[in-house]
């Protein structure tokens, strides 16, 4: 089970949109996943418990995470192609 954390400023607007898109994309990729959402502040402390953290690229550099956690920074949070491409690359 892949554990994914979607984060945005407040943890309830854009992160929820990303969460829905990630769930759809990972399902298409045939991956079993569990997607949570959080504010950027919460996400920084929770990141270590996840496999992938997805966040606006403006916040990506602020994440200091253990090596097993992949941080994916998105430019356009609503662009499924960008999410698919970057998520695919992060998952190898």
């Amino acid at each position, binding site marked *: 089970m892949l554990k994914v954390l979607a984060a945005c*400023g407040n943890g*309830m*607007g854009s992160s929820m*949109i990303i969460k829905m898109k990630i769930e759809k994309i990972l399902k298409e990729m045939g991956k079993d996943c569990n997607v949570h959402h959080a504010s950027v502040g919460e996400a920084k402390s929770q990141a270590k418990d996840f496999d992938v953290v997805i966040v606006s690229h403006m916040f990506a550099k602020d994440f200091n995470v253990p090596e097993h956690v992949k941080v994916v920074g998105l*430019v356009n949070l*609503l662009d499924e192609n960008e999410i698919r491409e970057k998520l695919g690359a992060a998952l190898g």
Partner: protein
Amino acid sequence: MLKDILNNHMVRLDIDVENWEDAIRCAGEILLDQNIIENRYIDAMIQSVKKLGPYIVLLPGVALAHARPEDGTKQMGISFATLNPEIYFGNKDFDPVRLIICLSAIDDTSHLDILSVIAEILAQPQNIDDLLNCTDTEEFVNKMMEMENRI
């Protein structure tokens, strides 16, 4: 469904403001006038950008402003305002902003269906252009409904 929350009282066109704070204030006043938020919610939306940066500009020309339910939400609601002239929020990817959306959410989940409909609509750049070309609020609302039906 959009019709549950969207009517011409939730839309203002061609708002003429000088900066991003006033843009959020004007779009937030729509929610205030409809008794959807308390005044302090508007300040919280502005503070959120000051604290976290212009990440609320999600797409080329489109900003989604919101705060947390505890910042003064009374009901779930979403307002739309088009900006003329366009306004710079300091987001180098997607400035200038021509459409600002304010969201008042009462919890983590009840706004998601609506938010995902709006996200699907705005994912098509042509839809954004069509909305910006509207000359009255009724036309804007009707176009949104048509776009929802095409998803």
